[in-house]
């Protein structure tokens, strides 16, 4: 074997170099291969990730739908649906966050997208339902206002001037207050609040109206008797005599002659006028047939002028005795007296102790027309209840 000067066999260096070179080549190829694999894997990952649909748009749409629903006050008028929509949105966000915590390649936003889609759908439905419901509620409240205003008007028309108990007109006043509050809430767009206040107003109105209407109906049970008394009085005027006919409900005093009303005057009565006088101090104006028994001119009457009536008549005495026997009137009570037609009236409300109050110039006129001995018939009403209420259902 030939050895070179350094003692290595021939070709040793070449072979060694060749070996080193082939090793480097292998490493290079391995690196290239690895990098290629990494590149391919990364490319695949990037493709996978970039191809994956994020729930961004779905959640944006859901959020906008929720915002729209809130604007439509779905949280008030479509509470359940709005709550569902909100829950779905929250679930979508929770799912999205959970998926984001996982390794990027294993993330799946499908559920988040589903929740977001459901949130949008529910929010849209809630908005739609809210608009419908609030519109219906608005219409209902507006029509309720009209119907309640009619009831209050009915009260003012039929019952306001009736001698009603304090609790009844308190209820009426409260109902008006609640109605005002309800209208303010309605004007501010707070329909639910308006509805609640309206319902309170309605309760008070119904209470006031039903109590007052019962009182009115009960009072008109005497209508057949009033009708008979009035017809008798008008018949009595046919011979040319003047007869006074007083209609308490209408607050009018008529002077009849020859079967016709020749004069009429506005009249005011006792504060408890909607009852027949039964005893002294009851502030009721008597009902029945009376006569003028004395005329008091200026200076003799505290009320400008007065025509004294012969109250109590025989019927009044009989009723008084009967009521006393039945214990309806206290033993010490008296039947009352000094019922007059007098002046100082025109006050616009019922203020006397049971007398018939006229304006001073009206009592002057009346005194010129009638005098002692003139028949005075006082009735609750000349018209039946149906006419008084103009057929109004109350």
């Amino acid at each position: 074997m030939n050895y070179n000067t350094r003692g290595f066999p021939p070709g040793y260096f070449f072979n060694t170099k060749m070996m080193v070179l082939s090793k480097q080549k292998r490493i290079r190829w391995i690196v290239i291969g690895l990098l290629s694999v990494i590149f391919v894997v990364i490319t695949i990952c990037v493709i996978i990730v970039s191809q994956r649909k994020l729930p961004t748009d779905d959640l944006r749409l859901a959020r906008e739908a929720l915002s729209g629903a809130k604007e439509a006050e779905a949280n008030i008028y479509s509470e359940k649906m709005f709550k569902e929509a909100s829950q779905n949105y929250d679930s979508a966000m929770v799912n999205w966050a959970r998926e984001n915590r996982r390794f990027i390649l294993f993330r799946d936003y499908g559920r988040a997208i589903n929740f977001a889609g459901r949130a949008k759908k529910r929010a849209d439905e809630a908005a739609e339902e809210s608009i419908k419901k609030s519109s219906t509620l608005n219409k209902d409240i507006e029509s309720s206002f009209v119907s309640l205003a009619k009831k209050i008007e009915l009260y003012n028309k039929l019952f306001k001037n009736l001698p009603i108990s304090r609790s009844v007109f308190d209820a009426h006043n409260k109902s008006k207050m609640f109605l005002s509050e309800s209208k303010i809430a309605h004007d501010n767009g707070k329909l639910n609040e308006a509805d609640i206040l309206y319902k309170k107003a309605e309760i008070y109105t119904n209470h006031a109206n039903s109590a007052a209407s019962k009182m009115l109906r009960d009072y008109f049970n005497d209508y057949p008797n009033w009708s008979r008394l009035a017809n008798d009085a008008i018949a009595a005027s046919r011979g040319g005599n003047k007869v006074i006919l007083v209609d308490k409900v209408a607050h009018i005093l008529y002077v009849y002659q020859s079967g016709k009303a020749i004069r009429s005057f506005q009249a005011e009565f006792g504060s408890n006028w909607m009852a027949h006088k039964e005893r002294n101090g009851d502030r009721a104006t008597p009902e029945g047939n009376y006569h003028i028994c004395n005329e008091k001119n200026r200076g003799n009457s505290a009320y400008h002028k007065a025509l004294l009536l012969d109250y109590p008549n025989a019927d009044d005495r009989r009723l008084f005795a009967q009521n006393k026997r039945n214990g309806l009137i206290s033993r010490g009570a008296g039947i009352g007296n000094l019922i007059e037609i007098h002046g100082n009236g025109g006050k616009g409300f019922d203020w006397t102790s049971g007398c018939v109050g006229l304006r001073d110039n009206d009592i002057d006129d009346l005194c010129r027309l009638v005098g002692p001995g003139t028949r005075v018939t006082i009735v609750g009403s000349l018209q039946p209840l149906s006419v008084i209420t103009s057929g109004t259902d109350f």
Partner: protein
Amino acid sequence: MKSKLIIAIAAMGIAVLFSSCAKVPQTEIDAATAAIQSTKDAGADLYVPEAYQAMVDSMKSANEKVEVAKAKWFPNYTKAKDLLAKVNTMATDAKAKTEARKVELKNEVTTMIGEVKALVAENTALIAKAPRGKEGKEALEAIKSDNAVAETTVTEVEALLANGDLLGSDSKIKAAKEKATSIKAELDEAIAKKGAAKAPAAKAAKAPAAKAPVAKKAKK
């Protein structure tokens, strides 16, 4: 070759470093959430609902942006951070607006309470002047009751105001004002009517034949 390999490894390292450096802006999220809560506590959802809703929507949008960033290879929270800062500004603004609205409403209600009290007092004085007749009080009971309802409402409003229910007190006092005003109109009308009825009586009183008034007999 070696150097190329080192560069590649370094690049990957930097990439990994970058991706791990962009942290979720939790401090900003917490601050914005606290700001919204504090605005709500101040009553912004009641007194400035539009501003409050806009702020809540922005917060939701910021949360979405955080998740969008998280979903990326290299998260970037700049947009989310900007929006969260905006939410904070909106919260400050909404809170200021709430306080301003509260002050405005409180002044409005307080002024109206004064007005209604004055009206109620005026009505009470008018009731005293109103036509009474010989028996006095009974006929004015209805009006008195109406006035009492207005007066009671004022007391209720004051209690609501003391409890901080400005919105409730506002609508109630408005209704009370409406009522007190209508009562005053009713009383003014009745007094005017009384004046008109008294005028001819006054003329008659001037007549020379007039005698001293006769004492009223109470028994009826």
